[in-house]
């Protein structure tokens, strides 16, 4: 099983390569793109944008809110102690604990969503090239069905430094 990728020195060249691969019939999900910075202004860098992150954060916040509510109101009744003539379950003050746990829930939910959907921690795929840290953009296909077409598409974006690797 061989993989193939090319390193492109500018985002425009990378965009050409991606378009070439699409024209060669490679399905979207098999095209791998890696870069050392987000390239959101370019079309190739704006895929996979849809995320449930805001909803997850809200859900996490709701769980935190419920946790805060139950923590305070249940434990305050487990041994009801009078302090300062205040009621046993003091809702004004419990709001503070509930607020903090709500925000903590939202934060944790965001982080968990990030880790899960970005597949972190994960192992580096076979064709990760450290040249990405030099500003190159990697465009490749993990297991291409039609080797020549893929090779042709990647070579077609000429100009700049390119690297073609055949790996098993």
């Amino acid at each position, binding site marked *: 099983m061989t993989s193939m990728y090319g390193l492109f020195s500018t985002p425009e060249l990378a965009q050409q390569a991606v378009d070439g691969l699409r024209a060669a019939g490679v399905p979207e999900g098999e095209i791998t793109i890696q870069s050392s910075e987000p390239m959101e202004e370019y079309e190739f860098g704006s895929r996979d944008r849809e995320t449930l992150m805001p909803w997850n954060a809200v859900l996490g916040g709701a769980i935190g809110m419920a946790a805060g509510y139950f923590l305070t109101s249940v434990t305050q009744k487990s041994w009801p*102690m*009078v*302090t*300062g*003539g*205040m009621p046993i379950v*003091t809702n004004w003050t419990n709001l503070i604990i509930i607020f903090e746990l709500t925000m903590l829930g939202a934060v944790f939910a965001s982080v968990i969503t990030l880790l899960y959907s970005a597949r972190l921690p994960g192992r580096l795929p076979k064709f990760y090239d450290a040249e990405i840290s030099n500003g190159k953009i990697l465009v490749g296909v993990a297991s291409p069905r039609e080797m020549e077409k893929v090779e042709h598409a990647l070579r077609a974006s000429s100009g700049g430094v390119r690297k073609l690797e055949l790996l098993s």
Partner: protein
Amino acid sequence: MPHKWGMAVDLDRCTGCEACVVACHSENNIPTVGETEAARGRAMHWIRIERYWEGEFPEVQVKFRPVLCQQCDEAPCEPVCPTYASSHSEDGLNSQIYNRCIGTRYCANACGYNVRFFNFFTPSWDKPLHLQLNPDVSVREGGVMEKCTFCIQRINAGKVSAGIEQRPLLDGEIQPACVQSCTANALVFGDLADPDSTVSKLSKSPRGTKLLEELGTKPKVTYLQRGSWDDSQKR
């Protein structure tokens, strides 16, 4: 019916002799902190005689006021303790549970009467003074807050005796150390929930006021004085 312990302090009778202070120290195992520490402001007098000077020589007047924990019904020291070390008992006392105290000293800041004290050091008594410690009262370690308890050990002992003899408590049977030692009979202790007790009647006296009443703490110590604070001290 639960008790509601309270006290009345007759300012017209107080002579400022401080017998109550000494009695409280010896009854409750309160350390004498020593000269250096007292100069640093660390003396621990659960009951103290506040002494105010007024006027210029030779028309100087001295006023005395014993101040102790007011056992407030709505104690500001209670909600602020993170570990419930300061909480309210069923008898209406503000209990300081030494074992729960972690020494944040927030209760002392919240107390408007400054009647809470902190063990800055673990107290020690040189021999043979350790023999005079009251076995009914614990010795607190460093880092723990303490204050007047209305001699809860005597309250409990009284309740136990009455329970054994299967009779109700008599008014005046339980006397905290300060009440017992007052030479002028200025201090009266009793059950505010019993309308016939001396302290109940004194708390309703027209001579009675509460200390720092405007703070809304509902203290259970009534201060009695003939007229205004100024009049009462005129001899």
